[in-house]
């Protein structure tokens, strides 16, 4: 079919969140702090899992390294050194993780850091559960290129999980808890056999209501996820590339 023009006001989301890369350069300390916490919230889990698998570190060491890495990002102002025109923020952070873990290993010590505090709750036990095992079998460690894929996938999982949390908060605020439960039942926990009809019987509502609720929830989820994604990208080009990778097509 024809490549129709993108209509203004389509599903393009409003650019309400400022990129963390810009925000860390802000003169406003609060804004800088918020940006770093947002970065930490989205990346701590992928970083932890990456350290566990790529560097084959036991859980306790991986926890220390993960916390240490984010404190280093804060203290050494690593984000300010990132140039959005040279690559993706995600790739830059992964390279920083490698460099950080490698340096820590060479120094053979865990540096004591003082003053800076992470305000993001890091649920390492939960992350460990997700990894499925507390001891990593060296034979099960994937090749370096698939570890990059793993980092990307875990980052996407983390981003979407945050967006789902935001969606839940939105549903509560708008008294649409049932909508969220439907979304949870069909899109988050459902299998191929789950049908709209089944949900309509389960919730005692019409199929049309299920359809409308799911359509609303998906639209809002996508909007929220893109908004968060925009915040975690260094430039519009990077955002478009990442959005395409996340959702399969343009964010427009």
């Amino acid at each position, binding site marked *: *079919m*024809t*490549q*129709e*023009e*993108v*209509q203004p006001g*389509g*599903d393009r989301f409003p650019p309400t969140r400022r990129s963390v890369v810009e925000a860390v350069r802000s003169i406003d300390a609060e804004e800088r702090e918020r940006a770093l916490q947002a970065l930490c919230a989205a990346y701590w*889990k992928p970083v932890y899992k990456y350290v566990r698998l790529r560097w084959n570190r036991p859980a306790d060491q991986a926890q220390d390294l993960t916390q240490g890495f984010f404190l280093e990002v804060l203290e050494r102002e690593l984000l300010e050194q990132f140039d959005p025109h040279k690559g993706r923020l995600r790739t830059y952070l992964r390279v920083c993780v490698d460099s950080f873990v490698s340096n820590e290993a060479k120094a053979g010590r865990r540096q004591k850091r003082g003053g800076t505090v992470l305000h993001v709750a890091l*649920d390492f036990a*939960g992350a460990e*559960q*997700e990894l499925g095992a507390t001891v990593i079998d060296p034979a099960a460690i994937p090749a370096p290129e698939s570890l990059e894929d793993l980092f990307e*996938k875990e980052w*996407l*999982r*983390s981003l*979407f*999980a*945050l967006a*789902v*949390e935001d969606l839940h908060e939105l549903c509560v605020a708008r008294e649409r808890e049932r909508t969220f439960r439907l979304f949870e039942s069909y*899109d*988050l*926990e*459902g*299998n191929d056999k789950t*049908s*709209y009809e089944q949900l309509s019987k389960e919730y005692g509502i019409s199929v*049309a209501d299920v*359809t*409308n609720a*799911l*359509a609303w929830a*998906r*639209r809002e*989820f*996508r909007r929220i*996820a893109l908004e968060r994604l925009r915040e975690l990208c260094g430039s519009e080009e990077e955002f478009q590339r990442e959005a395409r990778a*996340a*959702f*399969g*097509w343009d964010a*427009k």
Partner: protein
Amino acid sequence: MKFLSDKALERLRGAETPDLAGTRYRLLERIARGGMGVVYTAEDEHLQRRVALKVLDVPGTDGDLANRLNREARVLAALEHPGIVPVHDVGTLADGRVFYTMKFVEGKRLDKFIESVASMPDRLRIFLRICDAVAFAHARGVLHRDLKPANIMVGPFGEVLVMDWGLAKILREEASNRVREADPQATIFEKPKQTNIASDTTELSVVTGHGTVMGTPGYMSPEQARGDVQHLDARSDIFSLGALLRFLLSGKPEVASIPDGHRLDKSLAAICAKATEAAPVERYPNVQEMARDVSRYLDGLAVGAHRESIFEKARRFYRRYRFFILLIAAYLAMRVLILLLLHR
């Protein structure tokens, strides 16, 4: 933070993509977005062929958009013509969104395709094929209302297809008859069969309403730009065809000069000018008249839109019969030369 399984991740990545569960189609990729919805390519698993699937953004079968999409599918179904993309199927998905499937056209949009067509006669022949499809639609009582290069596709075998009938207006039965009466030879294909699309006029007026402006600036007729929907007729599409012809010749819908600085041929410029007159009454009365002028130009004949001076007539005569004129001139030159040699 809730853990998302791989399955959930996949579903969320496809948030807002149409739910094709229970249909014969498998989604492949998104290829375009329009005002009403999105067009994807999908595989028809029964017939194992690729189709284009147009689906609304929002669920619901009785809203204005759903009516428009359904109507567009019916318009396409009624317009069986090699220059109009055929529709295969229409229905509602599990997620409540109305969709239809149509032939997937692997080709290029006219504005992209034309970059590789340097010859003006070739460009004019493409234009004539667009005219064929539009004339056919007019004979069926349908106005396209959004003719522009982006809505024309040229396939790998040179087939020209007029796409995106989402803004189409279905004329009243009597208006449709009037188009046919204006030129009994108008339809160059078989006599139109009885269709029920003309009865959809009321539905259309609900959808578009009087005073609603829809179309593309540069290609939209002044009356369409004013939102004068009720009084639109075939001449509104003729305005768009005039702008389209100008685009084919100059690369722009409104400037009558070609990029290398040469002036556009006066006859072609006159055809464009007549088609894009501000007053509908000054334009060609129907597409066939316009196509006839373009064909006459291609054949080296005078066009109805332009009154030639003696000099222009002579030049056209020379262009048309250049070979014979040069042959006779060469013959006469030889004769003169021989006579001169004999009398020395």
